[in-house]
């Protein structure tokens, strides 16, 4: 089973969410331990809802926290 399929089965990637080739490549380069961590903490790959909501560039402008 590929990494993408594992994350789809775990509900972290929506089945209907069309992944780009680059996204598929990024997911599939992760190791089994890294995929296990994603499944463990339930961090989802952004689905269509989040993709719509997060405007281009906001991520960089808003930053994350202070460090």
């Amino acid at each position, binding site marked *: 089973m590929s990494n993408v399929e594992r994350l789809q089965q775990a509900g972290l990637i929506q089945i209907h969410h069309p992944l780009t080739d680059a*996204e598929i490549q*990024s*997911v599939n*380069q*992760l*190791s089994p*331990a*890294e995929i296990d*961590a*994603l499944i463990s*903490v*339930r*961090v*989802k*790959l*952004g*689905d269509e809802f*989040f*993709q719509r*909501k*997060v*405007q281009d560039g*906001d*991520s*960089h*402008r*808003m*930053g*994350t*926290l*202070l*460090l």
Partner: protein
Amino acid sequence: MTTHSQRLRETVCLFRARLTSLIRDVWFHPRLAELYPEFLFAIYGVTVSSAPAMRAAAGRCAGELADDPLAAWLRDYYLEHAEEEAGHEQWLLNDLHSLGVARQRVLERLPYTSVAALVGVQYYWMFHVHPIAYLGYIAVLEAPTSIEFLEEVSRRTGISLSSMSGHVMHATLDPGHVAEFDAALDSLPLLLHHQELITVSAIATIAHLEKVFSDILEHFARVDDPAGAATIFTTSGIALASPSSGF
């Protein structure tokens, strides 16, 4: 060939959409002027831990890991950055004070459990696995807000930039830190298990930060409930500075 930093950034970028959405919900909250002190309180809880955590990681590198080929580099890196981060929590205390929240109230209030979890997991990894894990935490957290964005927020909310000094100072001081971090990461002779630990640490950091930002919003949602609002820091009843006032 994909570098360590490229691989890490791709993974973080791919899986931080929900976190970005929550951060956006805070920054674009319709009552951000009132919510901002609660936001600062959450950040204070994280910031106050940064220099001590890096010193702890450096101490581990200098102790039982002294023979580890990465230990000397990591020790120097953490000590240098601990020095840079030291005292930054004072900016946040000053900001909160300027918004009407006394220092003593901040110091007496229990930090969010989600903040403790975010930071605490790093101590587990640095003491029981390897202190290189903290690089995954830094990779997610070290992303300063842009000064232009802060100016927009000030205009939109009326919060003076002088009450956002923690954010402003990081926007001013840190723009080169991300590139420096990536270059440093790519210079390291990482083995697969180091790379995995950094990535897993970054993934856990994203997950815990999602909870921190959810907590900010959930706490503030109780602000109009007299029973729930007792501990929440807001600017309610405080006259905000003019939107046009500068830093």
